């Protein structure tokens, strides 16, 4: 157990800060948490800018050499490092940048000027520093954040579920998206969000990343059953799971 009151700092990299917003919106649970930890740096809710901390919560992915150096520096002071949100845990939507060469992307976005000469291929933060806790999702699921903070305080690991979103979705007794003619990434995406999107009539978009061992061969049968195409599914996959780590989990069928 971390004692006495550990100091917690939030830092952000390439992201939208939406995950920190989820934390800010926790309400009562956040107030309860502040009895157990000192939040010393969290720019969405406070003006202090503490640079001494035990628990470092990093949002966003690494997208430049400068990011890389800065992350190493702030990580060196921390005892516990938490990756917050899809950008930090799996690269998230930022990985779309890597689908084309850096030069091509720069030209498409900035034209002839180059305001980011030190840009690199986007990566999740665990390609730069060792991560102790992962809080997946785009955005993160508030109750899971609280659960992870409890684990940190009790000094125990947090095991991200290695079963699909379908587990939670069925327990919530949602009508299957496939039965409504919709295509859903639930069967191959890690659970832990309490099937947040399907609960509201939407489909899983895979923001928490793929299972360790997704059955991509069998996934093809599903496509056939529901009359979907490999191209269509690849588009869905790549929104969040374009990083090399995630795409390495697809079967051959899905490699172009």
């Amino acid at each position, binding site marked *: 157990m971390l004692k006495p009151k550990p100091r917690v700092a939030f830092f952000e990299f390439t992201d939208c800060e939406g995950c920190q917003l989820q934390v800010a919106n926790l309400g009562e649970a956040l107030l309860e948490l502040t009895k157990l930890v000192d939040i010393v740096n969290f720019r969405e809710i406070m003006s202090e800018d503490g640079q001494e901390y035990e628990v470092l919560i990093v949002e966003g992915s690494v997208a430049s050499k400068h990011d890389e150096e800065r992350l190493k520096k702030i990580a060196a002071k921390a005892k516990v490092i938490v990756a917050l949100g899809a950008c930090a845990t799996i690269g998230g939507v930022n990985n779309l940048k890597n689908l084309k060469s850096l030069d091509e992307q720069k030209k498409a976005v900035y034209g002839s000027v180059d305001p980011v000469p030190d840009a690199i291929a986007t990566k999740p933060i665990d390609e730069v520093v060792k991560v102790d806790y992962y809080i997946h999702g785009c955005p993160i699921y508030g109750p899971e954040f609280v659960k992870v903070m409890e684990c940190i305080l*009790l*000094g*125990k*690991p947090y*095991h991200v579920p290695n079963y699909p979103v379908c587990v939670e979705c069925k327990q919530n007794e949602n009508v299957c998206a496939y039965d409504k003619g919709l295509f859903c990434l639930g069967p191959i995406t890690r659970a832990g969000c309490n099937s947040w999107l399907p609960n509201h009539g939407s489909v899983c978009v895979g923001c928490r990343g793929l299972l360790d061992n997704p059955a991509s061969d069998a996934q093809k049968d599903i496509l056939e059953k529901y009359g979907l195409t490999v191209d269509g599914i690849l588009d869905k996959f790549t929104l969040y799971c374009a990083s090399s780590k995630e795409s390495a989990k697809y079967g051959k069928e899905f490699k172009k």
Partner: protein
Amino acid sequence: MKTDQASQDLLKTSPYKPMKAKIVRTHKYTDTEKFFRIELDGNKELGHMPGQFVQVSLFGYGEAPISICSSPTQKGTFDLTARRISTGALTPALHKLEAGDTLGIRGPFGTAFPLDKMHGNNILIVAGGLGIVPLRSLIQYILDKRKDFGDVHILLGCRTSKDMLYGDEIASWQKRADIQFNCTVDKGDPDWKGNVGLITSLIPGMSINPKQTYAVVVGPPIMYKFVIVELIKKNIPDNQIVVSLERRMKCGLGKCGHCQIRNVYVCQCGPVFTFEQLREMEGECHEGECYVKA
């Protein structure tokens, strides 16, 4: 559904609720293995037999099945030895506990080594790595009731001499004239003067009276088939080769399903099985897969 008074009372207690227990002594044998001597609240006896296990509960961290490593002849307390698995929740927290700390215990669960059948027979004990943990219970029991058994031969194998548990006790076993004790390490080092090689290499040279021998084998899952093949070559009958299997025992009550091998709930029908029983589990129990080749 009408129930009688006895079962009415039964329905007021939960088999999931652990008993309170206190740690009275600890000892760190290696970087990852720690020994705990435990006393149940109110000085109750656990009432176990060698081979059984308990569920250790640390509230907030969960529960884990751990073999009992002391003999029931030891009264008032029982012993556990737990490996710290850094990716897990329970064992790292357990390793932080010291004498005076409390924890929860459910059990004892599972089957014991078949002592009634083993009585009067020669005993060959084959312990690989952590397999010595449940076997310590059996060895202590046999040594306390030495005259009930025939020849006793213990084979112990470890990766290196530094991984060896219960060094003090092993030294005393080695000195005893009424048992034979052989030890081997997979990898030698300058301080090690004993055997180097796999535990299976110790068996071919032994002279064994197969009809009157019970062989008890406990070790890592991969070890079983290699040892069992050697025992079969010595003509020890299938029902006299005894093993203890590792599975994910969660409830201990034969319900939760995690430890199931085919139709067998290891937490109730095991963890102690004979090789004869392992044969029945063909296809779901790789520890017993040697007979195909034998």
